[in-house]
């Protein structure tokens, strides 16, 4: 199943020439075989250059926790700007690039981020808590017993989609469009999925924008209220956005509020199944749920990397990065860095410092919704523990073809009758 990192010295990851290592190869992520390559780089070439043979062109890989922290904090040298290609290893064609605040630098990034940030302020989270609990209860109570079903389809997608609909105050009956648009945004064409070409993707984005423009037009003339569309329509830094910029920020908020939590909701079930002693520990002491949630988020690392572009020459870990180079921060690797995280390959629900993982990123781009994500996962696990003796994983999960979104297309499970 989710095999532990392969430390067999004969494994290709440990024997291939370093300059051939291409950790961003999405096929390996789909096969669940990505970790040994990052482990090799962490050991032998923690700041590594893939010059050739990558489908994404040349890029640097930063693999150690402390080096990544350095990149995160230096936004002058390491730009997130969409104009340089943005925040993932894949460059969209130049004419199809989309501005969004995660792919901007200060000061515009800061101003736009501050417009949407209050949606996850303590007051709003308290308001959401009862709603999340009610929905989680409803979804879990409707699950079949004693038969195999897909956890992604029946639990992870419905729960995160409903949450997203509430954040946008999106027409509830159309909420399936949100997860559809999220998938369309992140799905590589090579995955042979719904999105057949970049033109096709642009067409779907056109539908997304048309739908949300209707909502904007309704809300811009009404008094401001706490939903993301109204906040964008009334925010000083966002009310005059171009349609393309509105589209970009919508994609950001849809993907950010959807894919990530969805995959941690699935990953957690898989990890507990693979680590029955840890699951027993949690069952015996449900107070560990906060710490278990952080551990699930670390172990899953639902976004495997974030990318920056160097704006000037810079030396990092003894390597010379040149202005214009693409720099990939492997969160997935930093979360397994034994120099910072003790026994990093083990899944442990009661770690001493469970929150030090880097899955949310650090610095000014740190995940806006991190507390909401934790709240959703916490309530899910509280309700699971209160209901089910166990959730048995019945077969291999199907993983997605992406080295950016690290997640599951399906996870067959069974709840004992």
């Amino acid at each position, binding site marked *: 199943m989710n095999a532990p990192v392969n430390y067999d010295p004969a494994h290709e990851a440990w024997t291939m020439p370093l300059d051939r290592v291409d950790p961003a190869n999405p096929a390996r992520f789909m096969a669940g075989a990505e970790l040994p390559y990052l482990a090799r780089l962490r050991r032998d070439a923690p700041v590594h250059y893939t010059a050739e043979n990558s489908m994404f062109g040349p890029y640097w890989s930063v693999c150690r926790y402390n080096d990544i*922290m350095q990149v*995160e*904090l230096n936004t002058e040298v390491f730009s997130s700007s969409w104009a340089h290609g943005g925040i993932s290893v894949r460059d969209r064609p130049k004419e199809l690039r989309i501005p969004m605040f995660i792919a901007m630098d200060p000061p515009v990034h800061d101003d736009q981020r501050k417009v949407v940030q209050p949606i996850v*302020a*303590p007051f709003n989270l308290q308001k959401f808590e009862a709603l999340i609990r009610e929905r989680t209860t409803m979804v879990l109570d409707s699950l079949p017993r004693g038969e195999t079903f897909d956890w992604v389809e029946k639990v992870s997608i419905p729960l995160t989609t409903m949450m997203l609909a509430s954040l946008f105050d999106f027409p509830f009956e159309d909420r399936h469009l949100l997860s559809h648009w999220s998938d369309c945004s992140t799905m590589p064409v090579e995955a042979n999925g719904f999105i057949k070409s970049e033109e096709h993707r642009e067409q779907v984005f056109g539908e997304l924008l048309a739908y949300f423009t209707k909502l904007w037009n309704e809300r811009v003339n009404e008094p401001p209220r706490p939903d993301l569309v109204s906040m964008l329509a009334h925010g000083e830094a966002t009310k005059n956005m171009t349609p393309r910029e509105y589209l970009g920020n919508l994609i950001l908020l849809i993907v950010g509020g959807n894919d990530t939590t969805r995959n941690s909701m699935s990953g957690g079930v898989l990890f507990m199944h693979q680590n029955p002693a840890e699951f027993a520990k949690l069952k015996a002491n449900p107070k560990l749920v906060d710490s278990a949630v952080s551990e699930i988020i670390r172990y899953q690392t639902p976004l495997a990397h974030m990318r920056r572009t160097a704006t000037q020459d810079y030396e990092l870990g003894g390597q010379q990065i040149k202005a214009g180079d693409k720099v990939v921060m492997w969160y997935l690797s930093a979360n397994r860095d034994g120099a910072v995280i003790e026994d990093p390959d083990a899944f442990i629900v009661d770690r001493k410092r469970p*929150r030090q993982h880097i899955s*949310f990123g*650090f610095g*000014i781009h*740190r995940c806006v919704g991190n507390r909401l994500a934790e709240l959703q996962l916490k309530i899910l696990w509280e309700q699971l523990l209160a209901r089910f003796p166990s959730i048995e994983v019945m077969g291999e999960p199907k993983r997605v073809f992406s080295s950016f979104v690290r997640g599951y297309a399906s996870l067959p499970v069974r709840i004992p009758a």
Partner: protein
Amino acid sequence: MPTITYIEFNGTSHSIEVENGLSVMEGAVNNNVPGIDADCGGSCACATCHVFVDDAWLARCGTPDTQEKSMLGFAATAQENSRLACQITVTDALDGLVVRMPEAQH
């Protein structure tokens, strides 16, 4: 050793002797004072060690640098007297410092 008083959002007060040279954040975390998360471990990179410094002490704690200001800009409940506790180094001059916790570390 200087004594730092940490007051939780619910009013619970903890007076702790903290070694010179440690940060106000480390003083809390090392002594299990609740209310400070310090996710990034003191790199000024997460704003989860946000505290309010009592006015009498604000000047003695120094001025936040650009990085700290920008992280505080994203803290949910930041005010004029907000600081990140990881960026305040404990010295004898801070003996008696009082810091208060926000409702939550966001």
